[in-house]
């Protein structure tokens, strides 16, 4: 398995984007969620890198990436991702976005449609008025989370991130997630900027313009982004398949390890 890493310097001279690549084969770009570095994809990288070239990166302001300002939009984050593809001289990729990363992936598919071979939208929503919002206690927690010490915040997030079955039966896997998450520095300002980007995101009406084969994946017990959003997204994208994971919460890659294999098969079917 070949691997590599690097930094893309954007034209403004201050924005730097860190990327990593593992494996060989058709390229897949993984776009991660709120406050997490590209390293948060470790389970999925291990699952996909046997057959594909898997590229992860840190969003601006997170991990080893830096930005000029703390004012983000999902459009800006999409253009960042495409600048990494440009640096690596990759014309088309399979694209997998999770949570906030799914919103960025929608923007990539809309702004740069020729770069997307196939698309997986995991645990995400398309924004706009029709989006199903989380309950008020979930919103209040994520606003409060930015001011909590990292370890306390990571453990306090567990009831929101994982479904009840996973919390009872997969404590070791949850602890592994948190250990990995704590290994990467958490940037409060970038987290708030990403929250703002997510709240401004609005692609619902334009999803019908996406022509890439699309798979929408969501946990039925997701409290952060309710599963109704997945159904709306799948109805709006013309070539979308919908996969609902009945027992899973928001972080379904931890709770349902088999899903990465299913996603790999989806990419293989759309080479």
């Amino acid at each position, binding site marked *: 398995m070949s691997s590599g890493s690097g930094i893309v310097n*954007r*034209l*403004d*001279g*201050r*924005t730097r984007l860190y990327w990593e690549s593992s494996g060989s084969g058709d390229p897949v770009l993984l776009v991660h969620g709120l406050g997490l570095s590209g390293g948060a994809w470790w389970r999925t990288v291990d699952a996909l890198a046997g057959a594909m070239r898997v590229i992860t990166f840190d969003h601006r302001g997170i991990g080893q990436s830096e930005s*000029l300002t703390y*004012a*983000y*939009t*999902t*459009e*800006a984050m999409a*253009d960042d991702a495409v600048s990494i593809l440009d640096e690596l001289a990759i014309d088309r990729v399979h694209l997998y976005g999770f949570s906030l990363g799914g919103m960025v992936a929608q923007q990539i598919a809309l*702004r740069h449609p020729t770069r997307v071979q196939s698309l997986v939208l995991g645990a995400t929503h398309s*924004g*706009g*008025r029709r989006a199903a919002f989380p309950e008020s206690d979930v919103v209040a927690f994520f606003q409060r989370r930015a001011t909590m010490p990292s370890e306390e915040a990571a453990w306090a997030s567990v009831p929101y991130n994982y479904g009840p079955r996973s919390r009872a039966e997969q404590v070791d896997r949850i602890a592994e997630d948190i250990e990995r998450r704590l290994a990467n520095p958490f940037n409060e300002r970038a987290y708030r900027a990403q929250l703002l980007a997510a709240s*401004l*995101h*609005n692609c619902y*009406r334009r999803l019908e313009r996406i022509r890439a084969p699309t798979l929408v994946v969501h946990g039925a017990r997701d409290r952060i982004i309710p599963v109704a959003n997945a159904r709306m997204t799948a109805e709006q994208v013309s070539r979308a398949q919908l996969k609902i994971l009945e027992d899973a919460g928001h972080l379904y890659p931890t709770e349902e390890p088999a899903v990465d294999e299913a996603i790999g098969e989806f990419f293989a079917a759309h080479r």
Partner: protein
Amino acid sequence: MTFMDEVLGCAVEAAGRVGRAALIPWGGAEACVDAYEMAIRALTDAQLNVARAVDVEPVRGVLASCAEMTRDIGATHLSSVRWILDV
């Protein structure tokens, strides 16, 4: 839903109806918002192309930063307008 949320929702709905009606002579709300989006993209790309062509710092950095501001401010406008007009 609180009383204020309901009031805000009604206000946004009313503003959307007025906006959609006002934009009918120019091809409708969706066409107008799409045209604005294309203009933002074109302006951003033009600034980035000039930045690439100018190999002098700090001019290149300033031009690239202007392009990013154009894109992000435009994206914020577009998101808000799409919300209000529901397009």
